Each structure stands twice: as structure tokens, then as C-alpha cells.
């Protein structure tokens, strides 16, 4: 039997890309109506669930803690994670967090992870490869730096055995095998697995699972360290680009390939 694991999975609540997304307000932040659990974080959650299921699940003492930082509505990302199978949830919410850049976000999330490790250490922090709104991929690397954890990011495969983590990372010109000992931080790509959907039993069961709401005071972080005050970047302007409009659409009547080349020639693209 493998060692039991205490895993923290980071789940971000993001504007749904299926709707028009907007940047609003004095600090140029995204409008959070119509928000969902960031699609790419479902892969991290699935990876966590597969690891604990191989070790006898929550009955054997394994934990998958879904952690989200964000305004009141972000608790929905935590709830969705519980429905899918996380064993408990944590929501970091504080008005002072609004407008946090990656540096401020990673500072706050690192403090929560330390807080969660106070009673029993966290073995593994799992994240998505990027959020689907900011899309910077900065937070996982910054968390690893702040927590002095080995970073195994953009993992397209993951194996945890005997306290050792092995991941595959595919680059443009080569593919690497990366190894470290637990505790570690791993971000996963959408190549790693096929995330499950919540089933009826999961949805019912989630109502009984614990969600802890934390404020900055609970994790010992000052208001000036996060939010716009603690951020090291500022968005000065945001301009909606005029949406692309459809151009010429033709139906092939046997010569569309020629017409295409004529178009390219006229655009000086040949």
C-alpha cells in the first residue's frame, strides 16, 4: 500500500469564455458575471483524484483540498470541485485581494498552503497549466519559488511512488522526464487525463463536505501585501478590439482553389 497523500488543488473561478468577456472599472479587471471553474483546473483535480483513488481514497485518510482565491462567487469553483470529488474545500476571500497581480496572488495562496500544512504537512500542490482568463502561467512557478518546493510544471504525465514524483514535460524541441521528492508542486496540461463529470451521488455528497472560508487575517497576510496595493504591475489601459468581421465567403463551384490564390496574390501573400 502506498503512503497516504494530502493534496491541495488550486482552482480558479474565471469568466466563462463561451460568453463575451469584459474588462471594466478603474483597475481594468475582468467582469466576473457568468463565471465558472477554470476548465484547465479540472485536469489538476482529476490527477489528484486518480492519485488518492490508487491509495484507497478518503477512507484511507487521503485528502484532496480544493482551494480557490476570489470574491464571494469563487466559492462556486470550490463547490464544483467537491461535486467532482475533492474531499474538502477552502475559499480565501477578502475585499483587500481585489486586483491582485500574479505576485500578490501567489503571495496569498502560498500563505494559505502554509496555513493548511500547519497541522499535517501538504505533500503535493496541483495546479492547472494556466488560468483561462489571465493565462499567464506565472502562479505555479511563483508558488514553488515562495514555498521552496520543487517545481514540476506543464506535466503531461505524472507518477507518484514511494515519495518520488516523476513527470513528463513536452517542449518544442524535446521532451523531458523530470523528477523530485515530495513535497512538490505540479502543474498539469490538458494532455494528462480526461476529467470526469460530477455524477448524481457526487452532487448530493458534496453538500456534506466541509468548506472553510479564510480571510487575510486568518492566514497572517496584511492588506497592503496583496490587491492593487501589493501588486507590482498595473494595467494602465484596456481597449476592446473591434470584433473581426466576416469577409468574402464563396461557395466552391469547381474553381475555388484558383479564386483563393487570386485572393492571396491580391493581398501580396504569395
Amino acid at each position, binding site marked *: 500500500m502506498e503512503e497516504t497523500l494530502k493534496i491541495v488543488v488550486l482552482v480558479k473561478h474565471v469568466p466563462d469564455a463561451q460568453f463575451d468577456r469584459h*474588462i471594466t472599472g478603474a483597475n481594468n479587471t475582468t467582469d466576473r458575471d457568468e463565471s465558472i471553474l477554470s476548465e484547465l483546473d479540472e485536469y489538476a483535480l482529476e490527477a489528484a483524484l486518480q492519485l488518492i483513488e490508487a491509495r484507497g481514497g478518503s477512507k484511507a485518510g487521503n485528502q484532496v483540498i480544493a482551494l480557490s482565491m476570489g470574491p464571494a462567487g469563487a466559492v462556486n469553483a470550490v463547490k464544483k470541485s467537491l461535486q467532482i470529488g475533492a474531499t474538502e474545500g477552502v475559499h480565501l476571500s477578502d475585499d483587500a485581494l481585489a486586483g491582485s497581480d500574479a505576485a500578490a496572488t501567489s503571495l496569498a495562496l502560498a500563505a494559505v498552503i502554509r496555513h493548511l500544512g500547519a497541522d499535517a504537512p501538504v505533500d503535493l500542490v496541483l495546479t492547472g497549466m494556466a488560468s483561462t482568463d489571465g493565462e499567464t502561467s506565472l502562479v505555479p512557478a511563483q508558488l514553488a519559488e515562495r514555498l521552496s518546493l520543487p517545481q514540476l510544471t506543464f506535466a503531461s504525465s505524472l507518477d507518484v511512488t514511494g515519495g518520488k514524483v516523476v513527470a513528463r514535460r513536452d517542449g518544442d524541441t524535446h521532451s523531458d522526464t523530470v523528477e523530485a521528492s515530495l513535497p512538490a508542486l505540479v502543474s498539469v496540461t490538458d494532455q494528462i487525463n480526461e476529467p470526469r463529470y460530477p455524477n448524481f451521488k457526487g452532487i448530493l455528497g458534496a453538500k456534506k463536505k466541509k468548506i472553510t472560508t479564510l480571510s487575510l487575517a486568518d492566514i497572517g497576510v496584511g492588506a497592503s501585501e496583496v490587491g492593487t496595493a501589493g501588486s507590482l504591475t498595473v494595467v494602465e489601459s484596456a481597449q476592446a478590439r473591434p470584433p473581426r468581421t466576416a469577409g468574402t465567403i464563396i461557395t466552391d463551384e469547381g474553381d475555388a482553389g484558383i479564386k483563393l490564390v487570386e485572393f492571396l496574390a491580391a493581398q501580396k501573400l504569395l
Partner: protein
Amino acid sequence: MTQALVFIDNPGPALKKSSLELLTIARSLGDTAVAFNGELHDDVAAALGAYGATTVYRPSAADLDDYLVAPKAAYLAAAVAASGAGTVLLENSADGKEIAARLGIKLNAGVITDVVGVDADGTAHKSVLAGSYNTTAKATSAVAVLSVKPNSVDPEAAPAPVTPETVTVEVPADAAANAARITARSAKPASGRPDLGEARVVVSGGRGVDGNFGPIEELADALGGAVGASRAATDAGWISHDYQVGQTGKTVSPQLYVSVGISGAIQQKAGMQTSKVIVAINKDAESPIFEIADFGIIGDLFKVVPQATEEIKKRKG
């Protein structure tokens, strides 16, 4: 005094176009230095001088490539301190963004990713939310760390070449203390075509190609372009994931993007919608890809694409 420091990691025998772009941007900010890692070939050293790098820093340690990202950030932090640079420029790859991320924490510096332009005062331009907004952002810290996308500027050599001074930077002893080790590396076969992220022309195939990328490759070759794909095509195993364009693949912004047998899902559009000219070939008139196409053809790709390829070859002689 150095204003801008460019990080260049293992370029091999020649600098990539994206590195030349970084050097061009750096020079627009002032005196430029390079923090280099890996073997420095003579041609590369000459190119660094031609692009105006007055100093080339090199790490005291030779084992940075044995670990993932972390020790490179430690080296770069030491190079920033040695140079006194106020702006650090890196490529916008996974490695580049993550080295930038960790450097930001080490130096208490703001990091801006996906940059497509930098003004003389350090203001960074980026296109966000799948190309639906153009934003400007600035680091409020003493040092700004920017990762810059390819095809952001036209590379331009310095008015007069310089001979850079080489300086060795001491890599901190604990640089790899908590780093994950790279225990195996397998090289991927080179395609012989232009790099997808940097290409002027990209021809992408989707589920509609039904396992046959031949017509896509032939059109790409006739146009001197790169081959791309939708996730449906890479998931089906018809082509490697390296060629995927979109949210979880490459973001491309070529002069010409030809979308073939791709429906135009939001995750696909996220990776190509800032292309200059978009051409779509799809047999379904209702496909969302036509909403963003400058030139659309409703038709069977297996008829239209080979005909276009033949015509291009004929015209090019």
C-alpha cells in the same frame, strides 16, 4: 550602465528570430546586455555584437540544464544584479515565462507576460482574452520583467556592431537546492518547416482532414509556411500535439492563417484570431470559423486545397 538585459537560453548554432526581436526591443530601451546560458558558438557571439549587446554574461555553473527552470532564475537574478538593468526581456515560452515568474519573486519585480510591444518608457502592450482586448501595463517595481511573444517587432541590427565584453556571473551555491531534476531528455524530430510560433504563414488542419495531412502539408510547403492543427486532429493522433494551435497549444499571429476542416471552437480561435489575414475552407456554411474569416470557401477541402496548391506552384513556376 545597462538598461535592458535579454536572457538567451541554449540557442545552439544560431539565434532564433525571436531572440533577435528581444535584442531589437532592448536596444530601444538603452544600453543592452545579454545573460546567456549554454554553449556560445562563434556565429552567435558575432550576432550578439551585431545586435548591439555590450556585455554578455555567462554562468559560473555548467549544470543549469540538468534542472527545471529554478537555477536559471537564480542565475538570471545574479546577472540582473551584476548589470544593474531595469528591464529584463525573455521569450514567451513555457520556460521563459516560468523563469520570469521566479525572477519576479526573487527581485520583488513585476512580471508581464505575452507582451507584443514595449514603449521607450517601459510600457508593455499585450493582447488579452483571446485577442478581444488590447491592454497596456507597467511594472511599478524597480525592475520590470517582460516575456515577449514572437513576431512582435522586425529584427534590426545595431547601426554599428560592437564587441561585447564577457563577464562570468557567480551562480548562487543553493540555486538548485529545491529544483526538480531533468533525468531524461528526448529530442523531437525537426520538421524542416518554419517554426509554428514564428512562421509568416500557417496552414492548419482539423477533424475535416480525416487522418490525411498530405494536402495541408503540400499547401504549407507551396506557401513556405508552417503546419498547424486543431485539438481534434492532435487528439486523434493524426499529428503530434506540438502542432496544436489554440488555448492549450500554440498562439500564432502570422500574416496568413489558412484554416482547413476546422469548425472554429472558442479554444481554437484563442490561438489564431490575431492573425493578419484568415482564410477558412470548410464544407459547412454554418461553421463559426466563417465569422472571422477574411476569405471563406464553402467546399470540400480535398478538392479546394490541392487545386490551390497546384495553382500556386504554377504561378511560382
